[in-house]
């Protein structure tokens, strides 16, 4: 019983951390969607090297 509860808690913990990580990554991806192009354009050295 105890080991079953431990396994369940462990699974819950793993799922919780995974869910938190997935949410944070999705949030960051949304920021890239919104600001990605601006980030590239704001670093002129990337766009202005001699051709």
């Amino acid at each position: 019983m105890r080991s079953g509860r431990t396994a369940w808690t462990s699974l819950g913990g793993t799922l919780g951390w995974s869910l938190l990580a997935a949410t944070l990554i999705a949030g960051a991806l949304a920021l890239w969607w919104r600001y990605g192009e601006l980030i590239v354009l704001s670093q002129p050295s990337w766009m202005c090297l001699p051709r």
Partner: protein
Amino acid sequence: MVMITGIICLILAMGIRQSFGIFLAPIAMDLEVGRQVFGLAIALQNLLWGLAQPFTGAIADQFGAVRVTIAGAVLYAAGLALAAFSSDPLGLNVTLGVLVGLALAGTTYGTVLGAVGRVVPPEKRSIAFGLCTAAGSFGMFAVVPGAQALLDAMSWRDAFLVLAIAIALLAPLAFGFSASDRQIRRHEGGQSLGSAIGEARGHSGYWLLNAGFFVCGFHVAFVATHLPAYLADEGLPPSVSAWSLAMIGLFNIFGSYLFGVLGGRFRQKWVLSAIYLARAVVITLFIALPLSGTTAVAFGAAIGFLWLGTVPLTSGLVARVFGVRYLSMLYGVVFASHQVGAFLGAWGGGLAYDLLGSYNSIWLASIALALFAAAIHLPIKDQPLARLAATPA
């Protein structure tokens, strides 16, 4: 608690450091200085970070990660806050260059992995290092667009002040490393710092790890610095560069963690060798296949997956062979080699372009270096030193 502290530390310290590039244009415009002024401050920062890492590592190994992280957080916050009030090139070099460069040596991988390594059992060390590295990778991925959002909402000076407040939080958080520092006091009277340096110097594997990490630095700095320019040269729009960079950041998180896990199951030198071999294959395919938006984004994902997976493996191998007592310092030396490679990758890429009119030669050099790194990890003697059999690693 040590793990959570390390994770937050790396998210903030690595994330903020990665976001400095987007401040280039507004600072150059506001202070009416050339872009090279800001570029010099960032170059100085990276060089100092690498050069200072062995020394801050040695201090962390002797006096604990708590003090080093607090000092790093104070320097980092001071660097950012004072940069917000800078009005000339000297101010930028001192704040973003010197202060933040030294601060990074106290708040990033060298200090954190040493602290974590002391409290995690050897069989779980690689996965713990993978988790910490993935946290740093997440910081690099998430904080850059977050800082861009700040810049959208406020001036660059106010944005620096917000980032200074965020990084200052690391000072109280550093006490989360206390349990790790207690392990240092438990092992007082053991091997001396000088003896640890001598031991590493006499081990051929340590030199090979230095050479391998040099290649890693060369690759990541070259790609991060020059990929968007290369794609622009080939006529691809900025949106493709943006998504290529985003894919590097995203897949770097997964790769950092996964290679940490693999390092716990297989011999780390083999996994390292496989990473460098895979980099050679990925770069070869990238330059051999016709370039399009799809191949550029796919390249970002593939090279991103292989980006910092080398960190948990290289640091794990140092810990495995030499133990964790002086891990921060010994890894710090290897990291310094990484930064020299990074300097040459970023600068050499530009130099090769200016001299030859294309990036072809540097892509080919990257492939050759990757094959070289894949080969030199194989003969590394990765058995723990005999000394470690008598005392716990």
